[in-house]
C-alpha cells in the first residue's frame, strides 16, 4: 500500500481487507467475537467515494483527457466550425459519435463539462480532506483555491455571460443590443400612447408545438408549426423552388410562402426560425399568424404584423433577441481609416455618447481597437463598421456595430491567477526560508 493510499484511507480496515491475499482473508473470517466490527456499509461507501475523488490518479487522468479533448476539439473545428466544436466537445458531458447519416450516437469520450466537473470535485475534496490548515500548507491551499476559482469562474462565464451586438447609424440612439444567434417571439401591446408592453417568448419555447403557458401573457399563444431555419418569400410563380405554404390563416403574411433551409451550425451563419402561432383561443382567437424573417438586399428583415384582440392593439413578430439596458448609447461619429493608397483597413473608431438618466450622467468616449467601453457591467468592443467610402458607395449613412459582452465573472480568471501566483510564492518562499534557516544553523 502506498503512502498516498494510507493518507486517503485513514481508517484502513475495509480497504486493507480487500487487498489481502486469499489465505489472509480466510484468516480474517475466523476473527474472535470481541474483535472490532467493520464500519457500516454507508460509511465504507462514502470513504471509497472520497478516496476516489481525492485520488491524484484522477487528477492526472482528468488532465490527460483534457489535453486530448482540447487537441481533438481543435482539430474538429476545421470540419464543423468553432461554434459547433465548442458545443460538441467543450459544452457537453460526453462527446458523441454516430455513423454518417445514421440516427443513433454513442458517447465515446468525456466532454468538457464532465472533465471540468470531476476536476473541480477532485480539487475541492482534496482540499477539504488532505490538507490541514496550517502555515506550512498555506501556499498549497492558496494554489488549490486559485484553481477551484478558475474552474468555477469558467463555469459561471459559460452559464451567465451573454454576447450580443449593437448596430448604430450615425446619430442613432439605442438602449438595447441584439443576440447574434437567438430569436424571440414578441407580442407588443401598442395601446398605450407612451409605452409599449413587450411580451417576449424565447425561441426555444417555440420548438415544440403546443400552448405556451404563462400567466403574464395577455392571451393564449399556441405554436402550430415551427421551422428552425426558414425565410419568408413572396408567393407567385417567381417564388423559389421548394417554397411552401405556411398554413397561416390571418395577418399580412397569410399568403406568403416559406423557404425552409437546413439548420446551420457555423459561426458565420445564423438560423432564422419561422413559426405559425395562433393568438388567443376558441372564439377569441385572432387566427394563426406566420412569423419569421425575410431577406431584403441580402440582409435579414424582421416583419411585424398588427393584431387587434380584446380591444387592444398588438404587434406580433419574430426578431433577434433583445437585451435592454438602463442607459442609451448614441453613435456620434464612425471613422474608418485605410492605409494610404490601399483598401486595407487601418483603424475603426466610434465616437459615442453614453447617457444614463438614472445617474444624471452623460459623457462622450471613443471605442476603437484595444479600447473597448466598459460600462454598466458590459463591455462594448468595436466589431464591424460601414463608414467612409464604403458607406458612400452604398448610399447609406455611416454605421458601427459593437459586440456587447456581459460577463459577471470576468474578474475570476485574474483573481485566480493572483491566488495561484501568491500560493506558489508562499510555498516556495517558505521552503527557501526553511532551507536558509537550516544552513545558517
Amino acid at each position, binding site marked *: 500500500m502506498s503512502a498516498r493510499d494510507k493518507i486517503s484511507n485513514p481508517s484502513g480496515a475495509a480497504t486493507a481487507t480487500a487487498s489481502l491475499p486469499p489465505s489472509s482473508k480466510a484468516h480474517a473470517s475466523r476473527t474472535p467475537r470481541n474483535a472490532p466490527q467493520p464500519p457500516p456499509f454507508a460509511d465504507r461507501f462514502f470513504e471509497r467515494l472520497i478516496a476516489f475523488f481525492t485520488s491524484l490518479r484522477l487528477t492526472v487522468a482528468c488532465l490527460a483527457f483534457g489535453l486530448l479533448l482540447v487537441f481533438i476539439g481543435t482539430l474538429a473545428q476545421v470540419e464543423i466550425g468553432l461554434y459547433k466544436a465548442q458545443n460538441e466537445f467543450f459544452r457537453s458531458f460526453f462527446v458523441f459519435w454516430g455513423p454518417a447519416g445514421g440516427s443513433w450516437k454513442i458517447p465515446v469520450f468525456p466532454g468538457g463539462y464532465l472533465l471540468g466537473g470531476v476536476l473541480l470535485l477532485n480539487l475541492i475534496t482534496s482540499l477539504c480532506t488532505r490538507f490541514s490548515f496550517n502555515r506550512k500548507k498555506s501556499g498549497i491551499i492558496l494554489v488549490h483555491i486559485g484553481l477551484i476559482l478558475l474552474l468555477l469562474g469558467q463555469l459561471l462565464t459559460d*452559464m451567465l455571460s451573454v454576447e450580443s451586438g449593437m448596430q448604430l447609424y450615425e446619430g*442613432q440612439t439605442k438602449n438595447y443590443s441584439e443576440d447574434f444567434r437567438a430569436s424571440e417571439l414578441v407580442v407588443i401591446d401598442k395601446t398605450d400612447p407612451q409605452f409599449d408592453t413587450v411580451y417576449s417568448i424565447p425561441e426555444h419555447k417555440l420548438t415544440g408545438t403546443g400552448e405556451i403557458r404563462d400567466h403574464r401573457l395577455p392571451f393564449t399563444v399556441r405554436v402550430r408549426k415551427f421551422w428552425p431555419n426558414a425565410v419568408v418569400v413572396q408567393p407567385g410563380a417567381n417564388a423559389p423552388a421548394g417554397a411552401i405554404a405556411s398554413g397561416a390563416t390571418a395577418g399580412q403574411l397569410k399568403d406568403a410562402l416559406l423557404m425552409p433551409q437546413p439548420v446551420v451550425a457555423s459561426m458565420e451563419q445564423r438560423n432564422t426560425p419561422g413559426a405559425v402561432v395562433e393568438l388567443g383561443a376558441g372564439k377569441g382567437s385572432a387566427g394563426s399568424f406566420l412569423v419569421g424573417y425575410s431577406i431584403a438586399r441580402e440582409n435579414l428583415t424582421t416583419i411585424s404584423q398588427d393584431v387587434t384582440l380584446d380591444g387592444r392593439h398588438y404587434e406580433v413578430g419574430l426578431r433577434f433577441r433583445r437585451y435592454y439596458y438602463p442607459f442609451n448609447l448614441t453613435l456620434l461619429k464612425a471613422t474608418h481609416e485605410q492605409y494610404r493608397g490601399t483598401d486595407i483597413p487601418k483603424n475603426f473608431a466610434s465616437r459615442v455618447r453614453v447617457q444614463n438618466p438614472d445617474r444624471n450622467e452623460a459623457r462622450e468616449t471613443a471605442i476603437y481597437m484595444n479600447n473597448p467601453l466598459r460600462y454598466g457591467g458590459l463591455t462594448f468592443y468595436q466589431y464591424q463598421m460601414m463608414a467612409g467610402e464604403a458607406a458612400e458607395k452604398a448610399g447609406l449613412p455611416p454605421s458601427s456595430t459593437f459586440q456587447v459582452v456581459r460577463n459577471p465573472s470576468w474578474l475570476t480568471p485574474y483573481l485566480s491567477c493572483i491566488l495561484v501566483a501568491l500560493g506558489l510564492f508562499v510555498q516556495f518562499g517558505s521552503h527557501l526560508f526553511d532551507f536558509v534557516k537550516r544552513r545558517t544553523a
Partner: protein
Amino acid sequence: MFCTLRRLASLRWPLLAALLAGCGRNDVQVYRVAKEQAPAQPQELARAQPGAMPPGHPDVSAAATTPELKWKLPAGWEEVAPGEMRLASFHVKGQSGKQADVGVFPLPGMAGSDLDNVNRWRGQVGLAPIAEAELAKLAQAVEIGAQSGQLYDLAGQNPSSGDKTRILAAILRREGMAWFFKMNGDDELVAKQKPAFVEFLKSLSFQAAQAAAALPPSHPPIDTSATPALGAAAAASDSGKPSWQVPPGWQETPGGQFLVAKFLIQGSETPPTSVNVSMSAGEGGGLVGNVNRWRGQLGLGQLSDTEINKLVTPVDTIGGKAMLIDMTGTDARTGQKARLVGAIVSQPERTWFYKLMGNDQIVAREKAAFTTFVQTARYP
C-alpha cells in the same frame, strides 16, 4: 467525514443561485419600453415592398452589402450624388435651361407589379391608369446589361406645373432584385435623349455585392470573433453544395438568393438559358406545388396531382430517385417562347431542385447533359 460533507454542502447556495440566474434568461419576459422612434437609417427596405411586407419594420439592418453597377456614361450626362433610394443619379441639360433627371433604383423582391409602377409613372405625367391587358402593348423590349427588360415611354403633362413631361422607365428583375432605370424631364429633351438612355441601359454591368468592412488584421482577439454579422443573411454556402461534373459550355455564375448554384449556357441569346439549382429543407412543397409554380413561370395553368404524375418521369440518380418534367410555354417575364426541364431529387431531410429554362432549341440541345448532370451529382 461529516465535517467534509458539511464543507461541501456549504457551496450549494452559491451554485444554486448561479444556476437560477443562468436559467432565468430562458423564461417568458414582460417589460415596458418607451415607444421606439423611427430609425435614423433610410427606410427604403420598408417602402420597397409596399404590398408584400407590412409597415413598421423595427430597425432593419441594411448596412452590410449593396449591389454594385457599372456603366458607360453617355455624352452630355453628368453624374451627381445619388439621392435616397438611388444607386446612381445623373443630370442631363438641354437647351434653354431644360433639364432631365436619371435615376437608378435597385429594390428588393418584386417591388410591386409592373402595372402598379407604370400606372404610378403615368400619374406623374398626367395620364390615366391602364388595365393589365394594355400594359403589354406599351412595353418595349430593351437590353439591360445583356439581359432583357421592358422599357416604357410615357409622355404627358406635369400635373403640378402643366409643363410637357416625358418619362422613360425600364424595369429589370434579376436575382431577387427589381431594378428601375428612369429618365424624367422635359418632353422634347427626354425624347431626344432616348437613344442615349437605351445605350446607357445596354452598357450596364452588374457586379457582385460588396461585403461589409471586416475588422483590420491587427484587431485584438475577441471571445467570439467569428460571430455572424448582425442582420446579415446567410448566403448559400459552398459547404452544402453537391459535387458534380459541369457539362461543357456551362458557365457557373454567382447564384441569387436561395440558389445553391447557377449556370449560364454559353451561346444562348438574351435572355440567357440557365440552369438553377436550389435546395429546401424537408419536402420543399412537394412535386405538385413546385411543378405548378414552374408552369406559372411558363404561363401555363395549374394541374392536378394526377395530371402531374402522368407528366413526370422517374429517373435514377446517385442521390436517390428524381422526378423529371419537360414543359414548353411562354416565359412570363419576357413574353418569348421558352422551355423548362425540371428535376426534383427528394432525400430524407432535404429536397433538391434543378431547373433548365430558356430558349426551347437550346434547352432541347442541353437536355441530355442536364439529365446526366442531375444523375451524377453527389450530395454532401
